């Protein structure tokens, strides 16, 4: 299935969860936040939240800012 991750289209296995996606990016969960179609996905639900084809995922981290 096709998912958009941070603006780039990716092909993921059906049923891929947010937790699996974050791990596949080589990221430690700490300091990371995820939104799917503009809605925040809380960390404790990453393992249950299966992505659906066509969804827009934003994976964010702490960055320099004023």
């Amino acid at each position, binding site marked *: 299935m096709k998912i958009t991750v941070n603006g780039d289209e990716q092909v993921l296995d059906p049923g891929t969860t947010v937790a699996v996606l974050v791990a596949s990016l080589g*990221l430690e969960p700490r300091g990371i936040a995820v939104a799917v179609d503009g809605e*925040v996905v809380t960390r404790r639900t990453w393992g249950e939240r299966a992505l659906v084809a066509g969804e827009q995922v934003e*994976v964010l981290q*702490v960055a320099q*800012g*004023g």
Partner: protein
Amino acid sequence: MEDPLVIAGEQFGSRLILGTGGAPSLDELERALVASGTELTTVALRRVDPRAPGSLFDVLRRAGIRPLPNTAGCYTARDAVRTAQLGREALETDWVKLEVVADERTLLPDPVELLDAAEQLVEDGFVVLAYSNDDPILARRLEDLGVAAVMPLGAPIGSGMGIRNPYNLAIILESAGVPVVLDAGIGTASDAALAMELGCDAVLLATAVTRAREPVLMATAMRHAVEAGRLARRAGRIPRRLYAEASTSFEGMADLS
């Protein structure tokens, strides 16, 4: 801790809140943060970049500095609320520097969106530190909504113009029941000292340090400026007078005629 800054019941030994934006490198930023003595520092949330070297998250953990997620770059209450929620997820903190700006050229706060976002976030249990215009009425409205601190600007973000309206700031300070943090516009150490002398509880600055020729030196200067300004405020300045007042007594002067 002598004379701590208290926001929402939490104490800070330093009254300088340093933003992390604009530093030439993470290494330089870390040294500036440590030199500033800050205990609270603002951070943004941006898309992960696996190619980026190092991690700001690790820098802050190593330095033991508490991160304050911001909503920089948000133009609407909706975006600011969502960004705040993402910050809460990423950093496991209810604290947020709420920033809702009106346009790219001025980066001035949009009062209508700001009040809307502040109301929603307070309702949602956030500790809101609200970046605001230097408008006493807006500051009062934010306080009425339950923000933990109001943060009026001295001048537009990154402008380095200092405190353009000290009289408005005085009115804000006179009536504020929550801490007032001078946020934005600081150009150099004397601006930070002035903010504290006027009675601000703290100063928040980023560009003045991160884009200085020598960020570590400027961070050190800001640390001393905030401390000096605070001490001067507590000490109480003498009244301004048009004419001289001798500090040396004329009594007992020698007759040399």
